[in-house]
């Protein structure tokens, strides 16, 4: 492997501007990680217009910092207040808060910070070696392969993501429909524009992401009331003892590896991997009854896993141009705004961007480790800000921000419409992630599907004859068909079992 571009990447990161934006990114990330409700996807969406004025590298370094910084921040409130600031630190609550109640909050936070750092770093090292490999492999991808990949991506995100599968599929379907609005790329015909010139170029990604993730979440949080107000927590000694470190070292290692692989999967990401790491560690332990009562492994495993996953979910984005989850979709939006050609060519065409972003994660993780331990008290103070003060400011920034992208009032209207849609979706239990992802992948899917059908002269069976697209489509069919068949079979079995018991009675 050629190491020169990797080292060049470090020279990009160490430019003062990039270092500054890396710091800003991780600090903002930690802040939103601490605040329950406002997640990294929302923050990145709201900050999209700000990145317009920056270099592409600098912008992505900052946005990436927000993403993995939030994984650190969410831990703090989970441990101290039993309030997970972030979906990915929900499982940390069980053992983290139990430790805090035993007066060992410092140990839990220290272990979480060290675990996060190690998980993140292992994942970056693996990313450094794996990403160019995947990219070199993906260079052979043609339109048929992209069609299959986009299909698998959309389906996996809808099936693997949390919540109801049917609702996620509905959301993804709406996203695909929204992607068709605007001018047809091949014939030039206008679709679903209703004669409105603003829709002629299709819906923009930025107002959709800002509305669904940003405004929608703010509206939803205004409604949610915390029943209990906590006293400000005091944290004593943050350094974990050597025994604790020894006890959790295995959990950190296993959590990192698990998180890395689950992060690559579309729809995987930080939340799923932290849950999986916790469950795995509990199953593996000789004393599972300790979990939930303050086991250090119960903090170490999910925290290393969510940081490892946050890092590795950059692999599909940077090598294939396929975002693995909602937050990555927003970062893809930022890259598209900057005019960066996202796809397998990125590693070779824009080595400075690719390695700059990857290497910034080393620096970001070190910054987080330095900050997270001594500044815990400061971050907890952020929670004293009431949503009634925070929400109007955020809404104002969102609306001004979206206006500055295109200087178009129509975009403000779009943000509000999608904000209301996002609020209603959250209220009814729909995850907006699949919608945004399907919207991003929708144009790629349509484009490559039609292009490949032109190549194939309209013969769709050709998709199955090419090795890569064929394999991907088989995976697609498996993912689509196995779960419903399995539920049907189990339902039948339980139904017949019911009949038998009835007969006996």
């Amino acid at each position, binding site marked *: 492997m050629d190491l020169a571009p990797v080292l060049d990447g470090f020279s990009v990161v160490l430019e003062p501007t990039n270092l500054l934006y890396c710091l800003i990114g991780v600090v903002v990330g930690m802040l939103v990680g601490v605040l329950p409700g406002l997640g990294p996807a929302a923050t990145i969406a709201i900050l999209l217009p700000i990145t317009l004025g920056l270099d592409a590298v600098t912008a992505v370094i900052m946005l990436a910092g927000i993403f993995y910084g939030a994984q650190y921040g969410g831990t703090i409130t989970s441990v101290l207040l039993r309030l997970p600031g972030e979906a990915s630190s929900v499982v940390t609550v069980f053992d983290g808060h139990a430790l805090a109640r035993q007066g060992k909050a410092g140990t839990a936070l220290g272990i979480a910070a060290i675990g996060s750092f190690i998980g993140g770093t292992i994942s970056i090292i693996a990313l450094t070696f794996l990403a160019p490999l995947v990219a070199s492999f993906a260079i052979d991808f043609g339109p048929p392969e992209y069609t299959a990949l986009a299909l698998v991506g959309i389906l996996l995100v809808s099936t693997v993501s949390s919540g109801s599968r049917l609702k996620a599929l509905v959301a993804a379907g709406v996203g695909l429909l929204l992607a068709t609005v605007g001018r047809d790329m091949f014939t030039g015909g206008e679709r679903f524009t209703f004669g409105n010139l603003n829709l002629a170029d299709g819906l923009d990604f930025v107002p959709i992401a800002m509305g669904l993730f940003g405004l929608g979440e703010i509206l939803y949080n205004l409604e949610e009331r915390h029943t209990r*107000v906590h006293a400000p927590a005091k944290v004593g000694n943050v350094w974990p003892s050597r025994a604790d470190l020894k006890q959790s070292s295995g959990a950190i290692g296993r959590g990192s590896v698990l998180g890395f692989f689950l992060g690559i999967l579309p729809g995987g990401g930080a939340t799923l991997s932290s849950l999986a790491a916790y469950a795995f560690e509990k199953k593996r332990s000789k004393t599972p009854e300790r979990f939930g009562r303050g086991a250090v492994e119960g903090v170490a495993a999910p925290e290393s896993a969510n940081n490892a996953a946050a890092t590795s979910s950059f692999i599909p984005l940077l090598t294939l141009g396929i975002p693995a989850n909602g937050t990555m979709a927003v970062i893809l939006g930022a890259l598209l705004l900057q005019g960066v050609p996202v796809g397998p060519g990125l590693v070779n065409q824009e080595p400075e961007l690719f390695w700059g972003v990857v290497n910034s994660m080393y620096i970001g993780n070190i910054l987080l480790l330095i900050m997270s331990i001594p500044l815990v008290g400061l971050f907890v103070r952020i*929670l004293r800000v009431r949503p009634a003060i925070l929400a109007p400011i955020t809404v104002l920034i969102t609306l001004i921000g979206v206006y500055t992208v295109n200087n178009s009032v129509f975009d403000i209207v779009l943000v509000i419409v999608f904000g209301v849609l996002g609020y209603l979706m959250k209220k009814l239990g729909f995850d907006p992630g699949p919608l945004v992802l399907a919207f991003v992948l929708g144009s790629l899917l349509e484009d490559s599907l039609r292009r490949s059908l032109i190549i194939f002269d309209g013969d769709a069976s050709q998709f199955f004859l090419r090795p890569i697209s064929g394999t991907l489509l088989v995976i697609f069919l498996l993912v689509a068909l196995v779960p419903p068949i399995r539920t049907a079979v189990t339902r039948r079995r339980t139904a017949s079992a019911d009949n038998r018991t009835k007969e006996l009675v």
Partner: protein
Amino acid sequence: MTVLVGYVPTAEGEAAFAAALEEASRRSEPLLLLNSPRGGAAVSSDVADDAAVALMADRAREGGVALEVRQSPHSGEIADEVLRVAQETDASVIVIGMRKRSPVGKLLMGSSAQRILLDADRPVLAVKP
């Protein structure tokens, strides 16, 4: 009939609690401690932490007073909440702590103590630290 004390973890709050404890044992009535933070934010420095609450419970037990602690958050002004709870429990006396404030500070920030003193329909015991 109970003795109602409005409490915040400050010197004024401590003074009010001490006076209320004495008052409750003199009247041999139960003591209701209202420590209500403003709702909305997840963390507030107006809330007494678990250790402080346990300490107060110990002191009440030593004095032979039955203590009830309410920490549910309120919306609006704290003065209204104190008066509402006083009505609800039909308190025989409200005990509050008072802090020194300049006329300008009072003009800008208002004064919860003043509102409680003026609006209460029952005796109020105002304590200085």
